[in-house]
């Protein structure tokens, strides 16, 4: 497991997505973690110190593992970049249903317009 800074992590994740376009999968795991071993946690507990929790992000393509930690300060920036990355990479998903919905609303519009026209025609007669 390689621990990276958030930005190099996103770059590496991008190349993982690129490597798996023809075969393979990418896994991304989010975890609430203090990044301390159990012994360290117990030590801090007995010392009465507060544990600091962060978000641990791991990614793998089955061959390579990478990870990064994101805290309260930088999670918004990270999640914005991550969202852009996903938008650019998750291109194999189907878009069909949305088009159908648009068509449905279009036909609804036509229906409404024709109704209005007929209503207007009735009003004028």
């Amino acid at each position, binding site marked *: 497991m390689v621990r990276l800074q958030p930005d190099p992590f996103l770059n590496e994740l991008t190349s993982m*997505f690129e490597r*798996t*376009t*023809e*075969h*393979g*999968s*990418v*896994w*991304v*795991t*989010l*975890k*609430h*973690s203090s990044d301390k071993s159990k012994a360290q946690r117990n030590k801090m507990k007995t010392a009465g110190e507060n544990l600091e*929790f*962060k*978000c*641990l992000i791991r990614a793998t393509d089955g061959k390579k593992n990478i990870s990064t930690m*994101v*805290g*309260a300060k930088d*999670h*918004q920036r*990270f*999640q914005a970049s*991550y*969202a852009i990355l*996903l*938008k650019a*990479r*998750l*291109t*194999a*998903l*189907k*878009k*069909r*249903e*949305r088009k159908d919905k648009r068509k449905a*609303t279009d036909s609804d*519009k036509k229906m*409404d*317009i024709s109704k209005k026209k007929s209503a207007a025609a009735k009003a004028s007669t």
Partner: protein
Amino acid sequence: MVYITSWDDFVERSVQLFRADPEKASTRYVMKYRHSDGKLVLKVTDDKECIKFKTDQAQDAKKMEKLNNIFFTLMSRGPDADISEVGGKEQMEAQAPKKGRGRKQ
């Protein structure tokens, strides 16, 4: 383990699972994406309970973005963080375009 079909159920149950015991080391949120099959699987588990959601629709990827935001917020800020803002935006955005279409008619 069964796949949950309703997205809203999935979100609600996964947040519940995390909040039930936030300090539990085994609780995690996993996204698996398979480009060659165009499939996306989301999983939230604490090794006792497991909630999964499977999709091949691009519109669900957009919903997932909101769930990502929720989990990033919960996990980096703590389980008591306010997620109504990240969750609330989604409803605002969903309603706004509908209103727009309505006015045009």
